[in-house]
């Protein structure tokens, strides 16, 4: 793994002006993500996880500080299709088949028909849904739909994957399975992943780096580099190393809450 910096945020600030006064969503946020990292963002509701991801994606603008993606501004990165974004809801179009849903960004990007076909097949294989290309979204379970939405984000082969609680609405058994699948996918594609979650085990299981955040104002409390091995069977969650890291995350979360 090289040490190339992919995402770099320096004293990032973001204040939303609302009718109830300003909301300080991000305060003095500093973070470096290197190529191939799997970074999890964890913290209580309202601590700015989504906002941070949206700033990376050029969907929200910071009010202060600098951020670069692949060395350029988020806007330039978005326009060069540097990242795929997976929202909490799958956001599939009911009038398009699974295959056509995955083609949607490819059509927008003007990729040739034959290449579209190739890529759809490739990413459907990655998320193990080869047989569902001709099905419609309503014929799939919630977990399958979320896998399709990941496949769609992978289809145009961006190096960065931004995922905002992609498994938040799923039950734990499906979640375990998708976590395993996501790790495999990360290994095979060598992508840089930023992943928002509310679950401590999920964050520890998946990540090379865990960013613990705290609300009002939204800020980073702790950044934990995980030394867990790259190969992670689900049983790793019972090892001492795993439990130690989970403990440190929990302490960070508690520290952020100490005023309550």
């Amino acid at each position, binding site marked *: 793994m090289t040490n190339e910096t992919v995402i770099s945020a320096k004293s990032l600030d973001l204040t939303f002006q609302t009718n109830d006064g300003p909301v300080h969503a991000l305060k003095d946020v500093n973070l470096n993500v290197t190529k191939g990292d799997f970074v999890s963002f964890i913290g209580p509701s309202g601590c700015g996880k989504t906002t941070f991801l*949206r700033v990376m*994606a*050029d*969907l929200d603008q910071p009010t202060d500080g600098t951020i670069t993606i692949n060395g350029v501004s988020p806007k330039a990165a*978005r*326009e060069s*299709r540097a*990242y*795929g*974004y997976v*929202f909490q*809801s799958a*956001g599939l*179009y*009911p*009038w398009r088949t699974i295959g056509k849903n995955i083609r*949607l*960004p490819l*059509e*927008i*990007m003007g990729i040739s028909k034959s290449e579209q076909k190739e890529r759809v097949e490739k990413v459907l294989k990655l998320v193990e849904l080869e047989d569902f290309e001709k099905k*419609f979204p*309503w014929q799939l379970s919630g977990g399958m739909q979320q896998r399709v939405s990941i496949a769609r984000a992978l289809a*145009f082969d961006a190096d960065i994957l931004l995922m905002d609680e992609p498994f938040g609405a799923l039950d734990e058994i499906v979640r375990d399975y998708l976590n395993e699948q996501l790790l495999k996918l990360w290994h095979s594609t060598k992508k840089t992943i930023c992943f928002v979650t509310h679950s401590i085990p999920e964050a520890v299981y998946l990540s090379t780096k865990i960013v613990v955040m705290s609300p009002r104002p939204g800020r980073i409390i702790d950044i934990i580099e995980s030394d867990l091995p790259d190969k992670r069977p689900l049983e790793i969650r019972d090892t001492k190393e795993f439990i130690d890291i989970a403990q440190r995350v929990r302490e960070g979360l508690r520290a952020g809450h100490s005023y309550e």
Partner: protein
Amino acid sequence: MNKSLIPIVTISMFIVLIWYAFSIVLNSSWALDKAERNNQKLSFSELVHDTWSQKKPKLPTPHQVGYEMWKTTFDKKITSKRSLVYHGWITLSATLAGFMLGTLLGVLLALAIVHDKATDLSVMPWIITSQTIPILALAPMIIVVSSSIGFTGLMPKAIISMYLSFFPIVVGMVKGLRSPDLLEIDQMKTWSASQFQILIKLRLPKSIPFLFTSLKLGMAASLVGAIVGELPSGAIAGLGARMLSGSYYGQTIQIWSALFAAAILAASLVGLISLIQAFVFKRMMIAQ
């Protein structure tokens, strides 16, 4: 299926019964006057028979209207001035022309309103104002103005139809084109989609259900517009003209049959749109 048929049939029969009853009530004074002039006394059954078979009743009975419609539909050549099909076609062609113009105008306006803030702010109030002017006051002016610049026949009526039908289309399509939520628009943004791509791939498909609702309203409004356009003097053909000439000569049966022809026309046109809608929804996997 059968369950829903029973109440429909019951209600229809009830309406027909009331209708016959009112025919007796409303037409009886004329029957009684006539009897008095001839120094006759009418029994109840004679009275009923008379009120149900007058030539110019105040309220014709369903069977009189039905017979008149049958006669003027099937027993007359469709090129005859007395054929209901002939008059129906005149009105239908103006309705369809106005409907198409109105749909085109409505969709174009909606596209402009959704994509341009200035258009939204400047044009929308005028669109709403346009519908507050009573069409009955406006129709004669449209006819006069367009005939003075050489438009007669179908065109002025189609313009009135358009004037009435573009409104539901604009309102529905603006709502439909704006129906994608913020998340869907953000998702498009992450792919750096252009406004045009967002329109084609997201806004238009999402506006289809709104479009069909608007089309049905627009079609009904178009028909009203075409008929209103036939009412000012000058028009000699069309269902509206039939109603008008019927009222000049006290031909109530003719008025009612033109009225029913218009209702049947409206129901068929809206029904046709519903059929197309069902087909499109099925293909697009939209629940009805």
